[in-house]
């Protein structure tokens, strides 16, 4: 009798198993929500870093116009990714037109949650995950556009860059992410394409798009002399540039973490973007050893050049990102060292042999290293069962992804910049470029207490003459000769 009363009271006082299960499920969702929220916060540092990096690299006459590009990237990519980009990711996994090779079980109903008017993209008490997941991808989109930003500085129009960043950040990269960086992407489900932390889908694609733009944009005036020899424009604030790079590196930890999936009541543990198991510790080790190897490779290949040493670190990380969920730290160290070395030679070749003026080495650091990274997976992680269909990753599958993404990225970059060039909307007038973009864009000099010293050229007889008029006339002569 007493025991039945006690059990009755206990039953009334305590929660049932179902209630506890509901509470655990809710807690799990809220932890997931918090996790992605803080990755977004950390990833903001990437953009602080890009702004500092590029602002420092620019000459003092172009400081604010350079920084404004990074700031307004957020203003244009955010709405365009919300209205169009996320829908592309959710609904184009099978390719366009549909290849019919995606698994119907990948993420059921996801496409319907990616339209801007859907329940997944507004306030919804029943959904703690969709919005923070969207935000993580939005930060990837900013990053993709910002990779292009630095390469174009000091001569591209702000508005042209913004239009290009919308195409790259809200269409091109997210289309390739739908194909090769989602559990239901046709490259994944059919070919086992494996690019866990976005070597190619973010970095490589942004680099290839940038290359297409640079071909139409042309070099900065004075970058190459009459014999085609490259001239180095020195950063106006190297300290800020180095700090910017370190901030980018810090933000990369948030980027890496945001590339994983976690929800304890739905999955047994950490998953990569293809919903294959991994751990947060594994990828954190790879990124850290990637920096170590990359710095080392960059330092030795460039014989201690500070720019290429730091860029080598970035290239090293990008080289091992594709396989960061499966690589041993020692393998990551070795591969990233090779990536850090190769990027120095590729970057120098692009600048001096191809005569493409990439102000920050983005095509080499992000483009080359991104493609190199997915190739390495085919060699060193071949056979790994990728994605929900467990298709083995392979050299051929990785090549298939590279062949799909190279034109997907390069052609839109080339085509849109060609159209802007035809409309005379791509590049600033040469007089403005020589004087500096800040005076034209903002009507002020942002270092008023420092004297503006005109650039000079030393003539063969030893006299210093102002470079502007000579460079302007030379530029006009080149334009006339092309007509």
């Amino acid at each position, binding site marked *: 009798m007493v025991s039945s009363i006690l059990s009755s009271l206990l039953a009334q006082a305590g929660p049932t198993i179902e209630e506890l299960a509901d509470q655990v499920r809710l807690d799990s969702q809220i932890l997931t929500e918090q996790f992605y929220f803080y990755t977004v916060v950390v990833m903001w540092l990437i953009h602080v870093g890009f702004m500092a990096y590029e602002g420092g690299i620019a000459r003092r006459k172009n400081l604010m116009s350079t920084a404004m590009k990074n700031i307004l990237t957020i203003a244009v990519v955010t709405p365009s990714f919300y*209205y169009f980009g996320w829908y592309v990711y959710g609904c184009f996994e099978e390719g366009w037109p549909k290849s019919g090779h995606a698994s119907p079980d990948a993420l059921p109903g996801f496409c319907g949650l990616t339209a801007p008017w859907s329940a997944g993209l507004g306030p919804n008490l029943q959904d703690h995950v969709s919005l923070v997941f969207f935000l993580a991808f939005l930060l990837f989109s900013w990053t993709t556009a910002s990779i292009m930003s630095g390469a174009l500085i000091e001569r591209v129009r702000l508005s042209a860059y913004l239009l290009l960043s919308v195409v790259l950040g809200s269409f091109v990269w997210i289309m390739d992410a739908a194909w090769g960086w989602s559990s239901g992407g046709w490259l994944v489900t059919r070919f086992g394409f494996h690019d866990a932390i976005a070597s190619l889908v973010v970095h490589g694609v942004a680099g290839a798009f940038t290359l297409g733009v640079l071909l139409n944009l042309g070099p900065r005036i004075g970058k190459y002399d009459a014999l085609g020899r490259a001239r180095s424009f020195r950063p106006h604030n190297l300290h800020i540039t180095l700090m910017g790079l370190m901030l980018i590196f810090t933000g990369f930890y948030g980027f890496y973490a945001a590339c994983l999936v976690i929800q304890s009541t739905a999955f047994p543990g950490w998953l990569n973007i293809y919903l294959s198991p991994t751990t947060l510790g594994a990828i954190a080790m790879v990124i850290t050893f990637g920096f170590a190897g990359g710095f080392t490779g960059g330092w030795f290949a460039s014989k201690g050049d500070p720019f290429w040493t730091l860029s080598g670190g970035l290239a090293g990380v990008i080289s091992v990102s594709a396989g960061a969920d499966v690589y041993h730290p020692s393998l990551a160290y070795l591969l990233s060292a090779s990536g850090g070395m190769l990027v120095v030679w590729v970057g120098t070749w692009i600048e001096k042999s191809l005569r493409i003026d990439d102000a920050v080495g983005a095509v080499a650091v992000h483009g080359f290293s991104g493609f190199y990274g997915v190739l390495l997976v085919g060699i060193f992680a071949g056979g790994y069962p990728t994605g929900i269909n467990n298709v083995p990753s392979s050299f051929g599958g990785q090549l298939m992804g590279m062949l799909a993404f190279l034109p997907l990225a390069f052609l839109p970059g080339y085509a849109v910049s060609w159209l802007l060039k035809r409309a005379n909307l791509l590049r600033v007038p040469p007089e403005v470029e020589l004087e500096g973009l800040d005076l034209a864009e903002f009507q002020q000099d942002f270092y008023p207490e420092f004297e503006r010293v005109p650039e000079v050229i030393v003539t063969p007889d030893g006299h210093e003459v102002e470079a502007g008029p000579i460079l302007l006339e030379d530029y006009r002569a080149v334009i006339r000769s092309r007509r």
Partner: protein
Amino acid sequence: MFDSFPYDEWGEDIADFWAWGGANSTGTYIMTVLGIILMVGALYGFVILERGKLERQAEALRGAAGLGPAPPANPTGSV
């Protein structure tokens, strides 16, 4: 679930409430279209305003053959 305050009851009251309508509603469609119009208009504005600034500055430099900011746009905003 909670016995300290009627959270479930409040939650039911506000669960379906979105400012200007719920998911897949007319209000949300209208807000989406207005947002897209603002986005496209802003992109167009970036192009036009910058073109005016650059052309003014380039003209001033060609005319004066020197450095310095161009005069600001006239109050009507035309370029």
